[in-house]
């Protein structure tokens, strides 16, 4: 892989890697560091990676591993919602609607953060990034059954909490 194909195949994935790392490590700065480290690793190991077909999934997998290493090294789990990351400025909305939207985003963020790690990872990869089940298997290094079970549990937990919140008018 030369620099050009690196630029075309690996670099464009940087935001996906960043979001996944952000989900895992919880801080933008650290997520950025993780992405940089992933890119450097991929570049340094480019000779061995010639036969890898799905480069992006491979990068996501390295992102997961490096993020988990980092969490272990920091020995602190950061799954708190990232408050500053919701930019809900929308000209079409009234201030009231905008606040309401912001609040509901915060609530879902808390809800997602409360999910077990695997469920949250699978849900992020499927519902935010739109990966296929097979790709999620590769990225998380788990089998298809586990992917489906985790996604099912995640979606149901979210659904349950959403309807509960709605019923209580929270």
């Amino acid at each position, binding site marked *: 892989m030369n620099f050009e194909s*690196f630029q075309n195949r690996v*670099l464009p994935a*940087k935001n996906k890697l960043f*979001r996944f790392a952000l989900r895992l490590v919880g801080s933008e700065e650290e997520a950025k560091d993780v992405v940089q480290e992933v890119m450097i690793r991929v570049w340094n190991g480019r000779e061995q990676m010639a036969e890898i077909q799905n480069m992006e999934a491979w990068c996501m997998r390295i992102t997961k591993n490096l993020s988990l290493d980092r969490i272990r090294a920091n020995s602190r789990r950061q799954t708190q919602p990232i408050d500053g990351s919701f930019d809900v400025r929308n000209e079409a909305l009234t201030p009231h609607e905008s606040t309401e939207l912001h609040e509901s*985003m915060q609530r879902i*963020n808390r809800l997602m953060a409360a999910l077990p790690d695997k469920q949250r990872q699978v849900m992020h990869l499927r519902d*935010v*990034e739109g990966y296929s089940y097979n790709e999620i298997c590769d990225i998380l290094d788990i089998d298809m059954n586990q992917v489906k079970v985790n996604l099912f549990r995640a979606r149901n937990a979210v659904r349950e909490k959403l309807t509960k919140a709605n019923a209580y008018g929270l």
Partner: protein
Amino acid sequence: MDSKKIEQLLEKYWECETTLDEEKALREFFNQAEVPLHLKESASLFRYFEQQRQQVITDVAFEGRLKKAIEPQKGKMRSLVYSSLRIAAGISVVLASFWLVRTQIREDQPQEITDTYDDPQKAFEETKRALQMISKNFSKGQKATAKLNLINEAKDKIQTKDNDKADS
């Protein structure tokens, strides 16, 4: 898409039976402005997904930093050239000072044998002359010592005569 169909898709979604395309359709539906009130909670979930996807690395220097980090070859080459130039400069300084010192020493202590003639014929002539001069001076000396020999011989003769007289 009407809300009936959306409700069906949503049900499939909760059961994890939707395809990626169907999930995309749901996301698109819920991110439009008008959403039926009873689907509001589901809408907020899909809007959340959409917003998550908007998160990007905002640091403009990120790619530049990365490129710098993964392009060490150029930097290495440059530093290699620089360091070899530095070594070459050091070596040339040492050589130059060595040469200067050597010539200085040579000037201070002129060598005993120096070629003064380029033409061997001339050199031969000059050498012959010098040798002749030496031999002339030698012969001069020989004449002087011949005189001394004469005196010595005379002295010896006198001594032997004196001895003879004393014996007899």
